[in-house]
């Protein structure tokens, strides 16, 4: 198990422009969206880190931008890292898919696409999961549904 | 002999004599046929109702439940209430189904089970038709119902039904062999295919006791194979509730469903009755060697009671199977038949032929 500092060093080795916000519950890394895939690929294949388990993947709408969040864990060493990417483009948000690395990412990403409208490049089957094709993206903060959602 | 006091041929003979005094021979035959038909119809309905009730109570007993207990004392009228419900339900026509075959299938199934009832000896002198190939007839007729099941599955235009029907076809065609061979074992022992003849041959002991181990093996194979042949658990792949929703009768409703339901129970009765007749001595009472007093007491129990108690015992065993065992998979089912039961029965029958030739049986 690597501690925070060791992980920080390894990750900065892979992606020098990664930021490490202070005072968080877990080790968080903010990486540019275009560097995310290569970073995860390295983190997964590197013998020291071996992040082979994608616990959770989701997105958060901060109204100014989207944050895509990945919780990765190594089942061998049990260290945990939170990767984040900011997507400023609200009109056509997109980021690389991690399906090639984690099979489970395919479904997490489909859910994020369904609820946030974030497109995932190289995703094998990017279709709406729960909703119809012309429905809005309900977890966006600017989503309005006059019929079904009563604003309080 | 004291067993003669319950001989039904005296009763039927007196009815015949009384009718002959009233009308000409042709009319007597006609009236008798109507009477017998009505009697069978009544028996069919009553047995069906009783078996459904019995199944519910047995299954409740196995499952730590009470079972039906609201309609009538001990829920006796529950089945009748259900029957009325089924009668009043809508018969849903299925779009793109084949209407002729769709409506025909339940009748084929129920007629097949009805036909087999005719040849069974219920008690001494109580048998509608005593064919000289009775065993063959009952087997042939009861396995005809697979045609009805296949038609039902195909004409429903539902994939679940079709899978269920195809499973049922494969299953019944396979297990028919084992049922036939296990019955043939006793036919070899008794030297006749006539059901009454087989029963008569067991006057001094049932074949399951007289036939040594081969008869016991045949009996076990018969129980397994006939359970499979009537599509009951653990061989209920044609219905396979958890896999195919309801299998071949998924699309049926109301009284057409009730026909399938009833036919299943009557088939269970038929195989149990056949098993009781062939292996357990039919209506013959239980006799032990030279215990004259004991045998005389046994003789005082009417033959019809003997027949039905043996039959219901076998029915109970079949129900016990269903409520205890998980269901087999289709490939395991066919493996069981073709790799185990069939070779065993074939060797068994050769062995029995040898025993009969050497005269080693009782």
């Amino acid at each position, binding site marked *: 198990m690597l501690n925070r500092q060791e992980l920080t060093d390894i990750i900065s080795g892979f992606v020098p422009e990664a930021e490490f916000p202070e005072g968080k519950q877990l080790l968080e890394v903010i990486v540019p969206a275009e560097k995310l895939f290569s970073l995860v690929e390295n983190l997964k294949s590197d013998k020291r880190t071996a992040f082979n388990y994608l616990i959770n993947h989701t997105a958060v709408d901060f109204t100014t931008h989207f944050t895509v969040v990945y919780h990765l864990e190594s089942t061998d060493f049990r260290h945990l890292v939170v990767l984040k990417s900011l997507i400023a483009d609200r009109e056509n948000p997109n980021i690389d898919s991690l399906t090639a690395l984690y099979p*489970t990412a395919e479904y997490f990403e489909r859910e994020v696409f369904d609820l946030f409208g974030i497109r995932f490049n190289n995703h094998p089957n990017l279709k709406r999961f729960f909703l119809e094709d012309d429905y809005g993206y309900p977890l966006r903060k600017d989503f309005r549904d006059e019929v079904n959602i009563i604003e309080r | 002999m004291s067993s003669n006091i319950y001989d039904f041929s005296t009763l039927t003979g007196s009815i015949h004599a009384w009718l002959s005094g009233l009308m000409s021979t042709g009319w007597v035959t006609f009236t008798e046929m109507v009477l017998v038909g009505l009697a069978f119809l009544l028996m069919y309905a009553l047995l069906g109702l009783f078996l459904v009730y019995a199944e519910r109570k047995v299954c409740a007993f196995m*499952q730590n439940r009470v079972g039906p207990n609201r309609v009538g004392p001990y829920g006796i009228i529950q089945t009748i209430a259900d029957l009325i419900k089924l009668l009043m339900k809508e018969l849903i026509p299925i779009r793109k189904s084949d209407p002729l075959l769709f409506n025909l299938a339940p009748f084929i199934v129920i007629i097949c089970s009805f036909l087999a009832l005719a040849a069974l000896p219920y008690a001494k002198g109580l048998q509608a038709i005593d064919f000289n190939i009775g065993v063959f007839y009952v087997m042939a007729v009861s396995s005809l119902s697979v045609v009805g099941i296949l038609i039902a599955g195909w004409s429903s235009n539902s994939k679940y039904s079709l899978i269920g029907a195809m499973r049922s076809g494969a299953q019944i065609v396979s297990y028919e062999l084992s049922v036939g061979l296990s019955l043939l074992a006793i036919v070899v022992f008794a030297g006749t295919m006539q059901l009454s003849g087989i029963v008569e041959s067991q006057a001094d002991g049932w074949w399951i006791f007289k036939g040594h181990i081969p008869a016991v093996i045949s009996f076990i194979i018969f129980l397994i194979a006939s359970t499979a042949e009537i599509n009951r658990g653990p061989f209920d792949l044609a219905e396979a509730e958890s896999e195919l929703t309801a299998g071949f009768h998924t699309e049926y409703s109301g009284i057409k469903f009730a026909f399938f339901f009833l036919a299943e129970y009557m088939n269970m009765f038929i195989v149990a009755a056949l098993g009781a007749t062939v292996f357990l001595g039919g209506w013959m009472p239980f006799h032990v060697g030279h215990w004259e007093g004991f045998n005389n007491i046994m003789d005082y129990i009417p033959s019809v009671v003997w027949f039905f108690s043996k039959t219901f015992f076998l029915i109970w065993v079949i129900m016990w199977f269903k409520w205890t065992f998980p269901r087999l998979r289709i490939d395991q089912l066919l493996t069981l038949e073709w790799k185990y039961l069939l070779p065993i029965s074939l060797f068994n029958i050769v062995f029995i032929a040898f025993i009969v030739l050497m005269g080693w049986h009782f």
Partner: protein
Amino acid sequence: MSEEIIKDVIIGENEDYIINMGPQHPSTHGVLRFEVCLKGETVKYLIPHIGYIHRGIEKMCEANTYPQIIHLTDRMDYLSAHMNNEAVCLLVEDALQVEVPERVKYIRTILDELNRIASHQLWWCAFGMDLGALTSFFYGLRDREHILDIFEESFGSRLLHSFVMPGGLMHDVHPNFQKRIKEFITYFRKKLPEYDQLLTGNVIFQNRVKGIGHMSKETAIGYGVTGPSGRGSDYSCDIRKIAPYGAYDKVQFNEILETGCDTWARYKVRMAEMWESLSILEQLVDNIPEGDYTAKMKPIIKLPAGEYFQRVETARGELAVYAVSDGNKSPLRMRFRTPNFSNLFVMNEITAGHKIADLIAISGSLDLVIPDIDR
């Protein structure tokens, strides 16, 4: 036979055909639809279609306060209702740096384990039924009733109790609580061998489950299969061991691991977990410390701005709660990583090439709860 029927039955080439299992099907255990491509009876591939019972719990969370959110989490995995509640409570307590009384920790852990046993009992019922052994259903329900009675006595509800609150419990447990649990332990220790007699030892049952649905450890990790399903593939994923919460660091228990990787292994893991849960209960029930049933909490709970992450082990695997707070009384974003969502999608991988009956057995062995998938 009319042309239409033939066209309808045979879809695609090579006589493959597609059947839709669900949304109303007896063994999908809810409104789940499998689009199954079959060749004869052999499954070629399978596509799960979900969303029939999606209630938008994550969206609802954004409009509700944290104590209210607890009542929503019940409705995800209704068979592990207590664990789901606890996940949110732990998250809130962690964020507010609240020290929870020992008594609360013990009671929560006891409830966790009771809930786990109840859930595994229901799984056993349904698994037997999936395989056609209908009697198992009633055996399991008979014993589950005892646990539900304990719940009812203390919380007034049997399934969705929402009994834990941020900081502690809603109220103290019933005075009979310990006595009833001890009675249950002795009762269930006698009844659990019956399960083995009825189902586990059955030859037909063993032939049905052995060697089907092979899920290697790599597959399990890749698809994020956790809980007993993952542990059947020798994948050590018990959050109770990895990141102990409640009183799990004070009890001795083993993480059940099986190396069989098949349906039989997953079955054995769950059966062994029931024994293990009983032993955890036994260790805890006599040692519940006296004290308050809740820590002192502010009437309105506002989480400091930031992001929080909490994992618990439910009866089906790892539930992770991820909350983003902007300092208000309701979260900016609440995300539930539910175990069944990940467990479901391994189905295609492990069912291909098996018979349709095996598909039912495999989906039964993954113990899917559909509202947990859809949220």
